[in-house]
């Protein structure tokens, strides 16, 4: 019981310390930006879900949209 209570207190404190969600930013700011001066993209080789490896060099000749995401 004590442990549960302590855990609850810790959780409450942790939640209270989270910053409030930022106000919605100006939508005009959320746009793709030209990258200048343009630089070669760092090479990468990552496993795909089917076990094959996706390499930037194999995609030469194609425009590639890379997006990073996560389960935040």
């Amino acid at each position, binding site marked *: 019981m004590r442990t549960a209570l302590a855990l609850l207190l810790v959780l409450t404190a942790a939640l209270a310390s989270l910053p409030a969600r930022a106000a919605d930013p100006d939508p005009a700011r959320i746009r*793709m930006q030209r*990258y200048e001066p343009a630089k070669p993209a760092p090479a*990468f080789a990552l496993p795909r879900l089917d076990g094959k490896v996706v390499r930037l060099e194999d995609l030469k000749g194609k*425009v*590639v949209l*890379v*997006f990073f*995401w*996560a389960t935040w």
Partner: protein
Amino acid sequence: MPQFEALNAQVLGVSADHAATLDAFTKQNKLRYTLASDFRRQMLPAYDAMVTNEQSPIFRYAKRAYFIIDGKGVVRWIKIMDNPLDLLKPDDVLKALKESGA
């Protein structure tokens, strides 16, 4: 998504989740684009798209970020989000893709 497919651009989603997690996510959501796992956190720092947060149980995870690389391997357009809840409008991304030669 059909508009992206029509451009013949390669769409690649990268996250620091394990490949098995991504596999389940793809099946659940019936995704049609390629997902790849940077579980070892090799690509994220190279693209300046990694958050290192000692207070987070995940510790090192991806920022929401978009990069458009042209056919010669040159980065043409970027957007790295401060807030992962923000999303780009698909039209904006399509326009940048077209201008990059897609």
